[in-house]
């Protein structure tokens, strides 16, 4: 866990002593997180050899060049929420962008913002709302890095209207050789940030895919992201006090509908009809566990309510209408929604009911994710059994029913996952129903046995999908070796590109695909 001789001094000389630290008191803060024991089980985990705090793109270039010179690896992070940012090898440093935390620009007219990696969604959205704009906020929570999340997923509550995975515009990307690759309009020194596609070969295609390269191809140090029209109040309308906040959007422009369908198939039909009618800003199947955890001020509250709530909250579709043009839009869309709901035998959850009280903050969650981390409250650890694979709404449903829920039930029988017989996922519509992905939630204790069940099940969802020729769960890191041979050997192309752009393997070496299949 120490750097090659001279490397630390080189970093200190470049960044200043206060911006480099290898003391275990500091590095231990970068060595542990959820899911870690399950994903890093094969490779072990290490404390980083040091943590560095660059203050600029130039600093990042210098760090990368020093890493190449002294042959140590680095992991660029954002707000540091996922296991790929924990070193799985010794001699790895963390590039922590805490000093790169500025919103450099918000272009109101052309609807984009330029941000550094340590700007969170909540910060950016707060500033955007002041000028009538918004952004779709990561489901991981509004406290995560806009840059890192866009590199990794970029999905969020209002994805039905604002899309998924398509938020990135111009970027400054420090490649593993230390050079800056200007993405999109940044490639023209006179153009600015407004566009993401490159002139010439569109290298934005390497920036990310179904998931990001997790720092395996350098670090994006500044990014322009798309903003979207927002007709609401200039400050996020929250009332109440911790831990019982309530959101309070003007009802003529923002209307939440919680609709119970007789079965899941009808709910799926409704999602299609909503998509075809091109209405709504957010459309999600809302699983009981997610809704109740979101409303739970404590784990005890959750477990007190869960057995009964699980029976009552089934096949519920959450549909938020937003009047982008005027309240007239909401009136029209509500009429269309009413017709769809009636045709499919759905029932609105009444606003004076207990179920509504528990679910009503959904609208706030869709616009600025503030509840999702409560999912950890339920049992200690949480993830999805598999999923994130994007295809049609039908495909999401089939994946869920055919092999994901059977795996969940297996985990429940072992006593590792919490009891849940709802068969409802967080199943989402993106881009007016053009795309969908599903996330069957599982909750388990933070122990090795439950973690092993989780990770085995997660990998099984990839194997099951491959067997059935269906959409696979995201294969992260080593899992690409499971999927790749069955999917046009994409992993080899990825590896070849990784080796070409990062020949010394200094940039998060095991991502996007490790050099060798796992032992």
């Amino acid at each position, binding site marked *: 866990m120490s750097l090659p001789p001279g490397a630390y001094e080189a970093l200190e000389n470049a960044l200043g002593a206060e911006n480099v630290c290898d003391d275990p008191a500091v590095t231990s803060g970068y060595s542990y997180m959820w899911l870690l024991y399950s994903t890093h089980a094969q490779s072990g985990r290490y404390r980083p050899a040091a943590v560095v705090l660059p203050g600029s793109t130039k600093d990042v270039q210098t760090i990368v060049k020093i890493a190449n010179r002294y042959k140590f690896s680095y992991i660029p992070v954002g707000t540091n929420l996922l296991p790929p940012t924990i070193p799985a090898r010794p001699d790895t440093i963390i590039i922590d962008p805490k000093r790169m935390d500025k919103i450099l620009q918000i272009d109101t007219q052309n609807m984009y913002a330029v941000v550094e990696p340590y700007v969170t969604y909540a910060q950016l959205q707060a500033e955007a709302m002041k000028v009538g704009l918004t952004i779709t906020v990561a489901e991981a929570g509004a406290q995560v890095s806009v840059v890192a999340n866009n590199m990794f997923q970029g999905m969020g509550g209002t994805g039905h209207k604002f899309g998924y995975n398509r938020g990135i515009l111009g970027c400054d990307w420090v490649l593993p050789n230390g050079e800056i690759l200007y993405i999109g309009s940044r490639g023209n020194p006179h153009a600015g940030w407004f566009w993401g*596609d*490159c002139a010439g070969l*569109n290298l934005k295609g390497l920036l990310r895919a179904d998931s990001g390269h997790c720092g395996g191809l350098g670090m994006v140090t500044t990014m322009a992201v798309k903003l979207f029209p927002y007709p609401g109040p200039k400050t996020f309308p929250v009332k109440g006090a911790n831990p019982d906040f309530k959101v309070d959007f003007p009802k003529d422009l923002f209307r939440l509908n919680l609709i119970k369908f007789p079965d899941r198939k009808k709910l799926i039909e409704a999602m299609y009809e909503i998509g075809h009618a091109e209405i709504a800003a957010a459309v999600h199947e809302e699983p009981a566990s997610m809704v109740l955890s979101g409303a739970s001020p404590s784990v005890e509250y959750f477990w007190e309510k869960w057995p009964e709530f699980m029976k009552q909250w089934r096949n519920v579709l959450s549909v938020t209408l937003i009047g982008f043009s005027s309240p007239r839009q909401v009136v029209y869309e509500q009429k269309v929604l009413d017709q769809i709901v009636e045709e499919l035998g759905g029932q609105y959850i009444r606003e004076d009911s207990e179920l509504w009280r528990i679910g009503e903050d959904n609208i706030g969650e869709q616009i600025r994710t503030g509840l999702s981390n409560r999912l950890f409250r339920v049992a200690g650890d949480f993830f999805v059994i598999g999923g994130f694979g994007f295809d049609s709404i039908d495909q999401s449903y089939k994946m869920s029913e055919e092999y994901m829920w059977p795996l969940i039930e297996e985990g429940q029988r072992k006593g590792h996952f919490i009891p849940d017989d709802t068969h409802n996922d967080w199943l989402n519509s993106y881009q007016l129903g053009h795309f969908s992905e599903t996330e069957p939630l599982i909750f388990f204790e933070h122990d090795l046995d439950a973690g092993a069940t989780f990770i085995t099940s997660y990998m099984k969802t990839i194997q099951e999908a491959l067997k*059935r020729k269906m959409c696979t769960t995201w294969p992260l890191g080593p899992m690409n070796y499971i999927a790749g041979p069955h999917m046009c050997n994409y992993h080899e192309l990825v590896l070849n590109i990784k080796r070409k752009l990062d020949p010394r393997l200094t940039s998060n070496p095991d991502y996007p695909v490790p050099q060798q299949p796992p032992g």
Partner: protein
Amino acid sequence: MTEKVLAKVDYLKPLPDMPYDVVMAGRREYHERVRTSLADIVGNDRITDDQQVLERYSHDKSFEPAGRPSFVVYPENVEQICRIVKKANELLLPVVPASSGTHCYGAAIPRMGGVVIDLSAWKTIYKIDHRNRATRIQPGVTYDELQRALESHGLRALFPLLPRKDQSVVTSHLEAQPKLIPEFNYSEPIYTAEIVLPSGDLFRTGTAAVAPPEANKTDLIGPWGPGFDWNRLYTRAQGTLGIVTWLNIMAEPLPTREKLFFTPCNSIDQAAHFTYRLGKKWIGYECFTLNRAALAMMLAEHGPDEYRTIKENAPAYLQIFCIAGLKRFPDERIAYQEADFFETARECNVSPSVQVPHIPRAASFFATHLRQCWDRDVYWKDMYKGASAEIFFITTMDRAAAHIAALQQEAIRFGYDPSDIGVYLQPIENGRAAHLEFIIPYDPGNAYEVRRVKDLWINASEAMYRLGAVFTRAYGYWADMVNRCNAVQYATARQIKEILDPNNIMNPGKLGL
């Protein structure tokens, strides 16, 4: 005293001179070897080196230098393409894919010779998936063919502005030709693709990767990955990274009722301001702006005199905006959007109407042509003088005025009447960006004018670049222009090209690769 070491003098000797006939014999032998190899794959009747045919592929409407292929082949299936590409690697033979009947920007000119793989006869529409608003098509399918097929399923294709009759829908999507509807959710309409890689291996993007369509149990909708965002990498790649053999693309609900509005504007800024505001309201479908010259080019049916009359009567800029209803409560949908549209117009101090003042034919023309190919022989851009040069790029609407002014200045500098330059402003994604296009008509029979317009075209392109134009579709000269100023991008692109196409056989020379 140290011993003197004499300088080393190396001298590269010339190769022995080879007699001309030996060189030519070698070439002929190579040519025949290629013919035999390709004919073995596709059959003798699907390969040609007929000079007239080759001539057709050796230049196009652009100013790009000509380049003659050695052969054109018309493969029957994907397997044949794979074999051709594998063989091309052995023979170090350039391979250039072509799908449209008419080529405009030099992308399909075989700059370094080789074989053109013509897929314009590949006209299968494999599937129209109404439920998922998708259609999977081969590269030879044209817009009219696709639109006819989709309409019977209650869907529509995403049209660019008045495409040519023989325009390939696949190429249009791969080249990211701007579509008339700036709705964010339609802005990247490719779901999945099948690609013959430069190695000759078959690759499929997104969820198509998991199995060929016939065995695949997804809906071929998921566009991302696997691994990298291949759809994006291959978009605008001009065939330098492989050959796309089918695309699954978006097909959107066919309106049940629609209403067109025309808004005369005094300036491009006024049109841009109005369009920005509408984009933020997130209403309407087709939305674009033409200047009077572009409008006259489209509407004049009877030659230059009519062109000039229309131009005189037309407003400086005309914004065209369409509101439509779908299956559910179409009239109410139109009604609320119309109310919001007119409210916005009042705020912007413009006066939309269902007619274009002084040009009565305009309304009916656009009512029928928003989802149609150009149906006359001479393309509208060429109507005035027989040919036209085009400059287009991505910018923002608030910069359009500066671009237009700079272009007009360049036109004056080259003695070209700026009022004859057509302007087409197409907002993208609710107006966050825009495709700005200039159409510069010229007489192809007048060599002086051709040279003058070519000089204007080059100088104006450079001027646009200096004003921040983003030439995402970097054809011909533009590729050199953008690569010149973006060394890391260019070097990285070359690295990617080297990995995917180590022998540089796929459309070599394009994008500067």
